């Protein structure tokens, strides 16, 4: 009994540590921080959120962010699933080296690759578009999706595949009819990790969107200036966090069930 009270107390402390800095952000987002006609500075107001609705640049940035993150997650799962299946079920020439290569690219700092990626993408017309960001974030997200999916696929017994093949399923039809439903939680967890790492990345997103196609993160950067409207900045931050919290909420039970990652 005593230990469970201690545990709850600790969780409360941690919850407070996480929430208090965020709470201040949320409060500031509902306060008018610049002198305006009709609203006293420092008082409660919805003016920041109204300003977002009235700004085409800010609304576009939200759309851009959603486009690139959805594309990125789809790409990473689409190419990650067959690759994870290959790693889970087969050994082949160079498989360990390839796995190591993926590991290296996952942990390579994005700032190292940013200069050549900028030059390369500018030449082929992928700079300043959400598609470019979606593609470039694959460098660290494909390894993540392969790792996570590989763990889930390995947990499915091989007989499961063999039965399906005996029933006359081709590989693609086995993937869609049997494998994907069987590892649905794994796909959710992999999508969650791809989402969080892509949504928050700023180094590559910044260098690729100097003139257009800015995601939310860069639109917020552009708000800083001589007289920064902190209320507006905080309102955009709150909006930037909402889709992430929705993602967390959807996968919370899968995160709690546990998964295995191979290294």
């Amino acid at each position, binding site marked *: 009994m005593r230990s469970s009270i201690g*545990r*709850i107390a*600790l*969780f409360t402390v*941690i*919850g407070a540590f*996480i929430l*208090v*800095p*965020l709470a201040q*952000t949320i409060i*500031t987002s509902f306060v008018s921080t610049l002198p305006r006609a009709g609203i006293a500075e420092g008082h409660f107001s919805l003016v920041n959120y109204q300003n977002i609705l009235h700004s085409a640049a800010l609304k576009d940035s939200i759309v851009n962010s959603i486009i690139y993150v959805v594309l990125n997650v789809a790409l990473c799962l689409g*190419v990650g699933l*067959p*690759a994870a299946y*290959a*790693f889970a*079920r*087969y050994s*082949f*020439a160079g*498989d360990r080296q390839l796995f*190591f290569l993926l590991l290296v690219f996952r*942990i*390579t*700092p994005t*700032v*190292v*690759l940013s*200069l*050549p990626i900028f*030059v*390369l993408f500018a030449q082929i017309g992928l700079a300043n578009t959400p598609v470019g960001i979606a593609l470039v974030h*694959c*460098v660290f997200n494909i*390894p993540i999706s392969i790792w996570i999916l590989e763990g889930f696929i390995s947990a499915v017994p091989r007989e499961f595949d063999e039965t399906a093949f005996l029933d006359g399923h081709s590989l693609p039809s086995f993937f869609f009819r049997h494998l994907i439903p069987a590892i649905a939680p794994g796909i959710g967890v992999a999508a969650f990790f791809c*989402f*969080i790492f892509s949504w*928050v990345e*700023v*180094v590559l997103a910044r260098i690729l969107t100097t003139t257009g196609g800015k995601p939310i*993160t860069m639109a*917020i*950067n552009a708000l800083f200036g001589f007289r920064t409207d*902190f209320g507006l*900045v*905080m309102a955009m*931050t709150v909006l930037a*966090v909402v889709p*992430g*919290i929705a993602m*967390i*909420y959807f996968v919370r039970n899968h*995160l709690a069930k*546990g*998964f*295995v*990652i*191979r*290294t």
Partner: protein
Amino acid sequence: MKLYDNRAWFLVLPALVIVTFVGILPLIAVTNYSFQDLFSLNNPYWVGVDWYRNIISSERFYASLGRSFLFSAIVLSIQLPLGIWIALLLQRSNQFIVSTVLVLITVPLVVPWNMIPVIWLNFINPNAGLAGKMLAWLGIGFDYKFNALHTWIVLVVMDTWHWLGLVVVLAYAGISSIPTAYYQAAAIDAASQWQVFRFIQLPKMKTVLSMAVLLRFMDSFMIYIEAFRINAGGPDSATAFLSLDLGEEILSFNYGPSAARSIVYFLIVLTVAWTFKAATSARAPVAMEPAK
């Protein structure tokens, strides 16, 4: 046993094509730049290893390298035990508490990286911030701008706030995938809580934890946006980490020197990844076997 079949390459091919395009090709290009003086990209001038010589002979480089290692060491030694401890406590809690804590603790992970320092600067602002006012009220002269120790404290606390969730999620995933039979066997042997942790939970968590260590090490070692926004490497370069120099050089379009610096950092990453892999695969069979 896995089947040996080289046709599996067809399955990894799409992933490999994309990684080649956004990872390997840029890496080759940056290697090429690093040996040249590029006033503009159309006028390359071969300079050989000059940029590399400049980097490895500069004291500034070793000083930043040391600071980056120190930061990673501090961050790991706080976040790893804390994350494992929280995960262990979660394992003994009911489903509702687990979900609530996991949802709460992962929220900072979805905050865009450039906003994390803004949130914290707002929070510790002595005039408007909750923490800033609190510290002032307690009479603590907290000055993150001019006191190096205070800047470090802000960075470490902020990084822990940001990343603790990842360690907890991974550690908890590792713990909850342990079959109950292991605990029953431990209970029959009257194993103490410490023994259960040392000989069942820790070995079983090894793979996910090594993942957590690697991700946390590299991300903290190359911390950039967060550290830059807090104090721009100051006071007096006390928080000038490795990636800050690289970021500055890229922003001022020094292609050659920044490319050489990128390659040096990539080699550090490669060494770390390789050492890490060698260390974890060598220990694997031993860790599973309970000591007598």
